[in-house]
């Protein structure tokens, strides 16, 4: 099966600041992938490159076998929900959808109407002055109505109230997951999506530092609590999140069983206890890992 998204050594700088330093990853069709990374790591930049809204300095990008070529045609087969949805203020919701329908070849009016209904949108609502939630919903309709195979969701629940967020998370994303769509989602509250994720990409330092199958996280991530032997130290740079250090007592989160086994077998601990982690918690700690929470 050919990957829906392939990124090979993608680099992008803004002036002297290198944001992406060689992103390499691929996503199989039907997978829901969470993109974890701290602020400014380049998640939005990566999305824009995937959408052909921004040119990569080097490397190759393929979405559904198509490379960004500057024509914007790639966006016909991608649904995009931006972090801050924006539409022309002089339009109403209905006019926004009508305008988009004239640009997207695969626009499905029936589907758009159903989404409008499901999300409780009023087509007559003027965009100027509309709430963040309304704009978010409109963005969802715009992203989904042309029935794309790949979705890029950049903080899709940002600004949505709890009810809407639940709607989006449980209803829309689940439906897309079931429909064998490929989703790449950046979300600071990734734990909300725990139920639908297949994989998590950890973006750090401008590269995909690690890829974590969610099943592995679910079954192998654990909390380790132990007392270090006198004079023993943990090797630096281990992919663990340090939760607490109280003299020789350490509390760590590890995401792979093999690492936990390695620590247990290292002889550095007088005692070491393992406690399984809920997936939501694992994702939360992964984000901390991406934010520099690793053990030094």
């Amino acid at each position, binding site marked *: 099966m050919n990957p829906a998204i392939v990124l090979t050594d993608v680099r992008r700088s803004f002036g002297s600041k290198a944001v992406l330093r060689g992103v390499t990853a691929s996503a199989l069709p039907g997978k829901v992938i969470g993109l974890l990374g701290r602020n400014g790591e380049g998640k939005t930049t990566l999305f824009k490159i995937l959408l052909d*809204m921004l*040119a990569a*300095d080097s490397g190759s990008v393929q979405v559904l076998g198509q490379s960004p070529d500057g024509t*914007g*045609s790639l966006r016909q087969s991608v649904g995009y929900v931006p972090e801050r949805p924006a539409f022309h203020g*002089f339009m109403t919701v209905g006019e926004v959808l009508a305008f*988009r329908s004239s640009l997207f070849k695969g626009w499905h009016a029936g589907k758009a109407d159903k989404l409008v209904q499901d999300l409780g949108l009023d087509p007559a609502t003027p965009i100027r002055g509309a709430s963040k939630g309304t704009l978010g919903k409109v963005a969802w309709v715009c992203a989904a109505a042309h029935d794309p195979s790949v979705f890029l969701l950049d903080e899709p629940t940002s600004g949505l109230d709890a009810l809407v967020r639940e709607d989006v998370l449980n209803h829309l994303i689940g439906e897309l997951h079931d429909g064998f769509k490929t989703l790449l989602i950046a979300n600071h509250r990734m734990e909300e999506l725990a139920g639908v994720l297949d994989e998590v990409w950890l973006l750090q330092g401008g590269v995909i530092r690690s890829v974590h199958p969610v099943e592995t996280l679910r079954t192998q991530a654990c909390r380790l609590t132990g007392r270090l032997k006198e004079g023993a130290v943990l090797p630096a740079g281990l992919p663990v999140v340090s939760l607490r250090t109280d003299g020789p007592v350490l509390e760590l989160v590890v995401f792979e069983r093999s690492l936990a086994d390695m620590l247990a077998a290292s002889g550095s601990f007088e005692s070491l206890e393992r406690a399984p982690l809920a997936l939501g918690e694992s994702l939360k700690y992964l984000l901390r890992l991406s934010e520099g929470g690793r053990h030094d």
Partner: protein
Amino acid sequence: MIEYAKLELRKNRVLFIGMALTFLGSIPFAAAMTALNRQGALAGFNAVLLFWTILGLPLIAILFGASSGAGLRAETAQEAESPLPVSPRCRAGGAVAACLAHVLLLGMLILLTSAVISPAWRETLFSGALASTFVRAFFTLTLFTLATLLLSSFIAAYAIGQGIVGGVLGALIGGTAAGALSLGLGLQAVFEVRAAFTTLALFSMAVSLPAGLFALDRLAAWVERRPKRGWREGFLIALATTLGSLAACAAFAHAYHRLTRSLTIAAAGDAFYPWISTRNDDVLFPGARRVSRKGVLLHSFEGGLIWMTPEGDRAPLIPARPRSFTELLGYLYFWDRIESVLWDADGGLWVLVAPDQADPVHQLWHGWIGRPFSLHSRLEGRRPYQLVRRGSELGMLAWGDATEDGSYAPIPPRGARPRWVTLGMKRSDFLLRGWEEAGLAARLSADGRTLTRRTPDGRTRRWTLPGKGPAAAVVKPTALGGQTLFALQLRLKDGGYALALCRPDGTVTTHWPSADGASYWLETAPDGSAWGWRNGLTLHLAAPDGALLPPLDLEPIARAALGEKTRLERWGNRLLRREAFGAGRTLTRWGTGAVRIEGTRAWLVLNHRLLVVVDAATGKLLSRWELPAYSDARRYSDTTFHIAESGFFLHTGRRLYFIDWAGTRRDLGAA
């Protein structure tokens, strides 16, 4: 792109409606203001319409371009539009198209309102004036100006994301292009022949707009996707944006350079009225004839007078005085410093030099070819414009408010002031009276049946005519076959016409009878031959020995020389002549005529394109040579063509050639 254009139309509709209302509101406002000042409402209408046409529309184009360019770059527009499945090129192109549509709609509104309110505009629009070259050029230039101002403002504002600065930059870039083309076309309007600019202007326009669109395309990709391209891409975009302005400036500089380096044939005498023309007077006087047809007089743009031989040897007669560009603008209509030249009977040359900033009075120079010319007089007070021959006397005409108010003065002795007299009658009558008083011209009787010549010593010669000539007309002499005689058209008793030649021995002979008019004005060639037209289709030829040849039908000659489908222009069809001049398949009267007759062989020039030799007795085409291609802007044979003894000079608008009687062409260089 269409959807995007629609979106942009909607985005700018407030601005559009605002501008339309401002325009409509300004009309009654201006009318009221002028009415209050007791100048009449129409003056207000015209002033405000002139403002909107000349200044308002270009400002609107800049406003739309700059606001749309900056708007497209604005963060809100970027966020709303960049995720859409269209290319940056489409976005930018659609925005420009929408702006252009708005500007053109406003232009149409202004134009139609002008047509409703202003009688002058109505006449321009609906009375066929649109077909005129000048109006077409104005509209083309206006459309280009609007397009280039809009595009450059859009590009500048889009590039820097700032409407006001972008508008200023766009106005500078587009305004430079439009200004250079306006100046160039203005020069062409004044110096038609010497500053041909239409092709250069069209070339500049053809370069400007595609280059601007290319810049927009590259810029859109750069601005939207921000690829790593560096200063080379920036330079390319800047170059493409300004290429139109650079091309227009280069075109203008080229035209101006050509203009200032150009040489123009200086035709001696005048040709205001064919029947009193002094153009060929030199052939009446052997002294003048010996010199005047051995070369050609050329005046340079910078005011010099040059004598050039068929071999291309140049002898400066009057020195040139280079002038600055600003001086050119100040003296646009009085640029030709060499205002008039005239041969005297001895072969000397008189030259009237117009004033300029360095010397604000007319100067009269005199000299002989091959000898230095000298300043004869400074003519303070009046504004002479023409050297004329008034019988045996040479003089000057000066302007008056009406033709009768003009003044005349004989050429004064060296250094003396001219003694001006008011004409008190039409210029032609005044001049002919001089010819008559000198005994050189003859006058028809009131019944047109006798021609009388009175010499100053009191002798009288009277010819009784076998028909009726124009009543009381004065007839200038014609040189033919070594004789000075009088040629005039007679209406015969049978209702037909014929050319009457009144010879010095008192005899009258009639020739070339015709039902529809005869040649009453014979053009004299340097070899002593003469020729005239009938109906624009028949040539009447007289050999240097005075032998009158049978009428020569031009139709078969034209078909043989120019092609079977050649159309023949008739007399008086002025419009056709203007449209068809230079066309390959129409024989036109301008540029067609006889240049030499030897025995029964006649050398004819057709349309200034072909030199042919025909057997005048049979009309058979004997030889045919293509002449150098000339600019179709050169409508006037006075500055195109000069017949000399051994051939003729042809000014193509770009170069000067000499063609001898064997058809050999000699390139005498850029002119």
